[in-house]
């Protein structure tokens, strides 16, 4: 079975500071990895995904993530955050050849002025 752990439930950060949201996964088989963002009262929007190839993945809104197979991690980073980045961020995995997503419990990013 697969699982996803998001170590930080909340991350406060000042505007224009860098941020890293941590995601670790557990799986005995190869997986695809995703980061989604959820703004208040909205559905989930894909930020980026890793399927194969380069371990550094660039997404929308200036976000990027790095797949580290040995550490079983897929941390999300942004070099300079904006107030508008305040939202809930979810990491998810999908087994290669499978279809369902398994989500972490989310990290609430709060950007402070």
């Amino acid at each position, binding site marked *: 079975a697969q699982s996803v752990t998001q170590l930080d439930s909340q991350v406060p950060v000042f505007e224009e500071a860098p941020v890293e949201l941590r995601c670790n996964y557990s799986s005995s088989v190869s997986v695809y990895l995703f980061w989604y963002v959820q703004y208040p009262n909205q*559905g989930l929007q894909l930020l980026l995904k890793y399927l194969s190839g380069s371990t550094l993945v660039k997404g929308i809104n200036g976000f990027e993530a790095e797949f580290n197979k040995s550490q079983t991690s897929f941390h999300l980073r942004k070099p300079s955050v904006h107030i508008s980045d305040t939202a809930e961020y979810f990491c998810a995995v999908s087994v290669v050849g499978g279809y369902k997503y398994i989500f972490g419990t989310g990290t609430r990013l709060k950007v402070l002025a």
Partner: protein
Amino acid sequence: DAGVTQSPTHLIKTRGQQVTLRCSPKSGHDTVSWYQQALGQGPQFIFQYYEEEERQRGNFPDGFSGHQFPNYSSELNVNALLLGDSALYLCASSLLGAGETQYFGPGTRLLVL
């Protein structure tokens, strides 16, 4: 291009009642997945439909059932509602294929009293 749409946006039911939630997938998508997101949690996979058949199911009781129509739209039915069924129900559409991005709708917020 319309994205994933869901109806209704909000719903209040009482214990023991039955509910039907509806989803229209993004144009061109043939696969629909349903997720339950309890307050403060990540989405949990309920099931996925393709070609009007349930392809994969998560760990949900039989009271959760679904249907997909020839136009790829889908319904989620929950029988004999429990207080614990209160959640945001998310529909996601995609093309069939492992690793295909799932696009989420805004969700239906169900409150069971």
